[in-house]
């Protein structure tokens, strides 16, 4: 079975070459504008007005044209200049006023007589009673997003209902709300510089105003504007996609075992990591070891400098059952994958710590000399840990696709610095209030931030000294 997996992994070298040696920019909040649903409306009106200005048509008809072109203003204007009749016909827009309407009419849907004033007609001149139009539009809205281009009920008539008719006929209710939501979605999804925040339940949209990719929504979610995954600097979208595919390809059991459990090096009981720090204590034999390399914890720590070799893939030193062949691609992958999932779990754990940090802050504030500002360092430290865990996680994807050479050495050096301080900060921040030393935590937060900056800037500068 292992042999199969080894063969599957021989393709790695080829995959690597396809990765562009691009550089991912670091997080920058300045390059994005986060907007609420009602502000999306304003943006929409702006574009409508611009098109109306150029084409000299009523804005509501321009909206129909824009919907037809998925809000691509440039394409619409270009095609309109080429062949205005065709564009209008396709969008169901009739510019000419309707033919004279009769004073009384029979609605073709309900077969009742009405006065003209009780009917609704588009410029095509097909009169229907208000009640039937309402039924028609409500039915269209319940059919889904296509309702934003609902045609006249008359069989074969191309005319489509513009927004004001929806607003006046549907009144205020869930149908109009739904219609407006579909309209907003068509606008945001059609606009190249706009994206919905991918966080579940978040209704904000983000507008890109620069070239950055890491976008922080007002809801707190940090995502990549290009691929909508979690912000993944320094790894590129390309790397993330390949990495995700690779992880999905690997056998599920391998993924789960290497990602979630390790045997205690002493008593061999399988251990599932459910805490943030790499310092493990076996619950059965009390053996202390490092989660990453499974070496004894006594050999680790800043005094010995031993543990911090753990980020570096050393082909000579692997006593894992998988490390039979040092050159083996699977081992190479597992090395990065283990560290990737390690930081991923620690990130999750640290996120869970946020609430505890707030409780600790409250506790601290009850002591003399601490106000809310002075106690905030605890929360800041946890936030710093979360950010570093997230970046460290993606550095292992970046590192996986980085070829050996002086760049990789420098990268691993910077990564090691960040990992060392993050690990320490993580442990400090999880300590109970009475053991927290404010100065130590503040200093470590600052140092960690500096190492994070060094790593990102180093990668941005192409990892040359």
């Amino acid at each position: 079975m292992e042999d199969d997996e080894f063969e599957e992994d021989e393709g790695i070298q080829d995959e690597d070459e396809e990765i562009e040696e691009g550089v991912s920019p670091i997080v920058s909040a300045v390059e994005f504008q986060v907007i609420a649903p009602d502000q999306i409306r304003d943006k929409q009106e702006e574009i409508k007005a611009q098109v109306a200005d150029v084409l000299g048509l009523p804005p509501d008809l321009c909206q129909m044209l824009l919907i037809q072109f998925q809000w691509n203003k440039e394409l619409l204007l270009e095609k309109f200049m080429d062949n205005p009749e065709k564009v209008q016909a396709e969008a169901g827009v009739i510019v000419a006023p309707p033919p004279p309407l009769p004073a009384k009419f029979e609605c073709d849907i309900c077969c009742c007589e009405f006065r003209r004033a009780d009917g609704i007609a588009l410029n095509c001149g097909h009169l229907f009673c208000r009640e039937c139009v309402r039924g028609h539009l409500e039915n269209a809205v319940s059919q889904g997003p296509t309702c934003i281009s609902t045609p006249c009920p008359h069989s074969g008539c191309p005319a489509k209902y513009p927004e004001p008719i929806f607003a006046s006929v549907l009144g205020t209710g869930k149908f109009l709300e739904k219609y407006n939501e579909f309209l907003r979605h068509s606008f945001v999804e059609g606009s190249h510089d706009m994206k919905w925040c991918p966080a579940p339940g978040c209704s904000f949209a983000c507008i890109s105003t620069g070239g950055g990719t890491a976008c922080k929504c007002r809801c707190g979610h940090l995502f990549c504007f290009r691929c909508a995954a979690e912000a993944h600097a320094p790894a590129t979208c390309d790397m993330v996609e390949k990495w995700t595919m690779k992880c999905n390809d690997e056998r599920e059991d391998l993924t789960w075992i290497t990602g979630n459990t390790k045997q205690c090096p002493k008593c061999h009981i399988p251990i599932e990591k459910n805490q943030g720090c790499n310092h493990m204590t076996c619950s059965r034999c009390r053996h202390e070891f490092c989660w990453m390399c499974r070496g004894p914890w006594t050999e680790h720590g800043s005094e010995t400098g031993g543990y911090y070799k753990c980020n570096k893939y050393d082909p000579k030193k692997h006593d894992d059952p998988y490390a039979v062949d040092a050159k083996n691609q699977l081992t190479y992958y597992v090395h990065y994958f283990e560290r990737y999932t390690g930081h991923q779990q620690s990130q999750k754990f640290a996120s869970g710590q946020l609430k505890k940090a707030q409780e600790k802050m409250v506790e601290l504030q009850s002591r003399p000399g601490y106000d809310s500002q002075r106690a905030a360092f605890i929360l800041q430290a946890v936030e710093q840990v979360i950010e570093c865990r997230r970046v460290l996680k993606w550095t292992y994807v970046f590192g996986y696709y980085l070829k050996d050479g002086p760049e990789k050495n420098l990268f691993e050096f910077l990564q090691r610095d960040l990992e060392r301080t993050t690990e320490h900060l993580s442990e400090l921040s999880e300590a109970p209030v009475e053991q927290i030393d404010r100065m130590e935590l503040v200093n470590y937060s600052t140092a960690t931030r500096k190492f994070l900056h060094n790593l990102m800037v180093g990668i941005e500068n192409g990892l040359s000294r």
Partner: protein
Amino acid sequence: MPRGKKRTQPEEVPERKRRTTRRTKRAIEEDEAEEEAPEEPFVPPTRPMVDHRPLPVLSPVAQRRLMKELESLVKNPVEFATIDAKDDNLARMIANLTGPAGTIYAGEHFVLQFTFPATYPIDSPEVVFLPPHVPMHKHIYSVGHICLSSLYDQWSPTLGIRGVLLSIISMLASSPRKERPADDADYARECTLNPKDTSWAFHDDRC
């Protein structure tokens, strides 16, 4: 215009996921039971599937509209079609069709069943041929379902019974040869009683 039913590429989607039409739980269970049994050769149904669904209760608008439509059809009948409606419940009607003269179906007898939803004519009627009186046509499945866009997402509230009859007759008149849709056997296994449950796709705008 008549159109073909969308066929999912089996190599793209695993077998289980392919069945994505809106269906009742029972239908899916029946399917799974069927999957376990060895596949039997497809035999076209020779009598109507038993339909236990209760008939819709028509709204006053729907009733008035259907009465008007029937009046108009009596006054000005559609050639090759007669409507058989029962006064006590307009929600279901039967139309007897004769293959139009001068076409490959000339003289043949077909039976169409209309079931009108409570919200008719805002919503389209359910229109099926009743086996075994189903024309051999590229866009008509042997279970009686008709792939005709104006019965589904291209429905217009002004079409009515007359519009549907005319579309179906013209669909028959323009058919060059008698054949079933390519996926007829698969469809018969997958579909529900209501053709509106199927996601129809449009790739054939010709005939």
